[in-house]
């Protein structure tokens, strides 16, 4: 049978190809192992050269640690530093370091590693976030357990940045192969990275802190939300770290195998206005649009009612959070009046949105609600990120857009008149600078003022804050409820 022979040959070719290529190993699931499904896969493991949220999410706090970290409520707490003091001029930070800590390559963690890691951001990092370290003048090694960091000018923002990836501590001898071999001081170390598929972490036997409850954590990546949900429903994974399609929560709620955790994030879904050009350079028009949108109804449609109405660019995990969501109640009559005052009976606006589900759903609601106040909205979907970044973000070619601004403390963008929303208010820029330089108390007062000011100016319409939705098998404890920093902290995971 020649046909059979041909088929055999074909199978053989496939088999040979299989044997030749380098392959990966999985362990069979056990009580010691937990598999967490996530949606964005890291391209490699080097967050000093490759941008994106996926790498720090997996590695920060788990493999790499910083001097300080963010706790689940957004407070800056010690990690590799046991304590720190700030000089009266707020320019010098004096860190006492934890002793007896070693990196997974055996090197001890000392003040030399602190100096090495901070200096290296200037010299070797290529991602744009490295500018967070520009404010550092120099680092002094006082003794192995003691480091001084001297800033060029006072900056509260710098210490906050140190909780993120730029604050990660590296072993001076451990940075040769960051893309494949991360070396840190955290509770876990890399076991395997199967690109495009999964990242396997194993417990670090020499860890200075409490031993993790699971010896092995597998982070498994799914581009497609349905595939992610199916994996949990069919026992392929134990946790969905962040539900991307809230409508699917119902199927987990009705299944007694699972529990759902709802926390907060720092991702404000913003209806952005092009403040720089007519007609949205008129505050009355922006306010009219803000009165003309029923944000509660929009949240129900776009994100199944899960999420928080915030009213400004501040999530509840920031110390200066205030609920400003009621300043512009839904009031179509007032909206029409404001538009008439501004001289617009009929207005046509281009809403240019990324082709992401929350943006598309929100845009439909906005179009129909604004039609009621005499504003015609034309929706244009742009491929995200490439086309949206080029045309809206960089090119400023839009009237309105809708994007989730996920970065922590991104309210500072309202102090930058070149940012895509083109908001120019010297008072806000000034307040942001004072907040950064001042004491923590001053910072809170100033930041509240910034939030109130941009809200009063209707610089944008803050539609809602994305919730952090986790679904887990019953009995799994210690999942971080809030996504407030760059890390997905696995260290507290346990079993009940």
């Amino acid at each position, binding site marked *: *049978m*020649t*046909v059979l022979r*041909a*088929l055999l040959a*074909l*199978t053989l*070719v*496939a088999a040979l*190809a*299989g*044997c*030749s*290529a*380098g*392959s*990966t*190993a*999985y362990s*069979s699931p056990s009580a010691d192992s937990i598999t967490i499904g996530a949606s964005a*896969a890291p*391209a*490699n493991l080097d967050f000093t*050269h*490759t*941008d*994106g949220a996926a790498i720090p999410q997996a590695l920060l706090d788990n493999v790499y640690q910083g001097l300080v970290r963010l706790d689940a409520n957004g407070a800056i707490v010690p990690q590799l530093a046991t304590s720190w003091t700030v000089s009266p001029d707020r320019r010098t930070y004096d860190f006492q370091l934890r002793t007896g800590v070693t990196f997974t390559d055996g090197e001890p963690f000392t003040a030399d590693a602190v100096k090495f890691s901070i200096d290296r951001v200037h010299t070797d990092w*290529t*991602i*744009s*976030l490295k*500018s967070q370290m520009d404010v550092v003048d120099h680092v002094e090694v006082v003794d192995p357990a003691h480091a001084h960091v001297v800033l060029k000018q006072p900056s509260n923002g710098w210490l906050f940045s140190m909780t993120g990836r730029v604050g990660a501590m590296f072993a001076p001898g451990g940075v040769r192969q960051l*893309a494949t071999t991360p070396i840190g001081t955290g509770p876990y170390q890399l076991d395997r990275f*199967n*690109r*495009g*598929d*999964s990242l396997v972490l194993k417990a670090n036997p020499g860890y200075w802190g409490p031993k993790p409850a699971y010896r092995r954590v597998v982070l*498994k*990546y*799914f*581009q*497609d939300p*349905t*595939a992610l949900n*199916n*994996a949990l*429903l*069919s026992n*392929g994974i134990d946790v969905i770290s962040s539900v991307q399609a809230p409508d699917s929560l119902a199927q987990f709620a009705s299944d007694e195998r699972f529990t759902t955790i709802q926390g907060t994030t720092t991702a404000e879904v913003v209806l952005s206005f092009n403040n720089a050009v007519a007609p949205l350079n008129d505050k009355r028009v922006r306010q009219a649009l803000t009165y003309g949108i029923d944000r509660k109804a929009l949240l129900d449609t776009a994100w199944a009612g899960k999420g928080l109405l915030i009213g400004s660019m501040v999530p509840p995990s920031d110390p200066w959070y205030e609920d400003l969501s009621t300043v512009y109640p839904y009031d179509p009559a007032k909206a029409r009046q404001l538009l008439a005052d501004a001289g617009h009976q009929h207005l046509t606006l281009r809403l240019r949105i990324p082709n992401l589900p929350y943006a598309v759903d929100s845009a439909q609601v906005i179009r129909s609600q604004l039609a009621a106040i005499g504003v015609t909205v034309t929706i244009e979907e742009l*491929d995200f*990120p*490439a*086309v949206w*970044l*080029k*045309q809206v*973000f*960089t090119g400023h070619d839009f009237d309105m857009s809708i994007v989730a601004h996920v*970065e922590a403390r991104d309210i500072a963008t309202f102090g930058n008149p070149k940012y895509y929303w083109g908001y120019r208010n010297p008072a806000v820029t000034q307040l942001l600078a004072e907040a950064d330089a001042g004491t923590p108390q001053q910072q809170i007062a100033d930041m509240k003022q910034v939030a109130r000011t941009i809200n009063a100016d209707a610089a944008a319409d803050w539609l809602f804050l994305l919730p952090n939705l986790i679904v887990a098998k019953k009995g799994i404890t210690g999942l971080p409820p809030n996504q407030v920093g760059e890390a997905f902290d696995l260290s507290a995971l346990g079993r009940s």
Partner: protein
Amino acid sequence: MALLRRAGIFLLTLAIASLVVFAFMAVLPGDPAQVALGVNATPELLAQTRHAFGIDRPLPVQYLDWIGGLFTGDFGRSYVTGDAIGPQLLDRFEVTLWLVGAATVVAVLVAIPLGTLAAAKHRTASGTVVSGLSQLGAAVPAFLAGIVLVEIFAVSLHILPSGGWTPPDADPVAFLKGLVLPALSLGLVQAAVLTRYVRSAVLDVLREDYLRTARAKGLKPTQALVRHGLRNAAVPVVTVLGLQLATLLIGAVVVERVFVIPGLGSMLLDAVGSRDLIVVQDVVMVLVAAVLVVNLLVDVLYTVVDPRLRRAR
């Protein structure tokens, strides 16, 4: 002579494909440097990155550089990760080959008996049912078949994983379990198409004089068909199988996404999303080359299956 001409056509097709792919990438809106750097990029950093990627050079230079690299086995470096693309491409291609190979086995194992049955019994109810089902099955897209299979076997019955990939040498059992559903969803649809061709090929053969002769010599109809008929029916079936391999490769791109399989298809879709243009170009070229190679193999197989064609050349 014929072989030389074939090789020439092969290379020319590849060259044209490369030009088309490159041109598409060049007009695709979006700046790879901007996508790589994200929202914090400064103009200086953008310019630096464009230079590092080499995308600030004239298009013809970029094209020749890329093609020149391909000839020396250098697939370039990813814009997103900075890693060499070649080794990754091999890994991903291996995964896709497993998927396509398994789907082909499914298609053949289902289609040959069913198609033969439909032809041998074409006047009876069972034959009509088989050809009806194959008509229906051929109209189902592979990803839809995949979604239905996952719903039944993974989500409801929990007997097979809903997706994911385990390399064969890591855990052969998990590998096979993970391969079943994607191979079925790709393979069954192909089987439906193939069944129709097997049926008509066998029907044609049944009408041939030599089969009548065989039966006149005392063979039962089934014996005659198996001993003399199937080999002759194989020629058109192999042709279709070759053509189908091309559609299988394309189908795999979608099915890989449904089943979270890290093959060429996932690699392609990820790269399009992040505007990792050079990866897109490389993957598409590998797919084009694979399809062309399959066509070439089909031509060679003809002569193996049917000695008459060998003599004719």
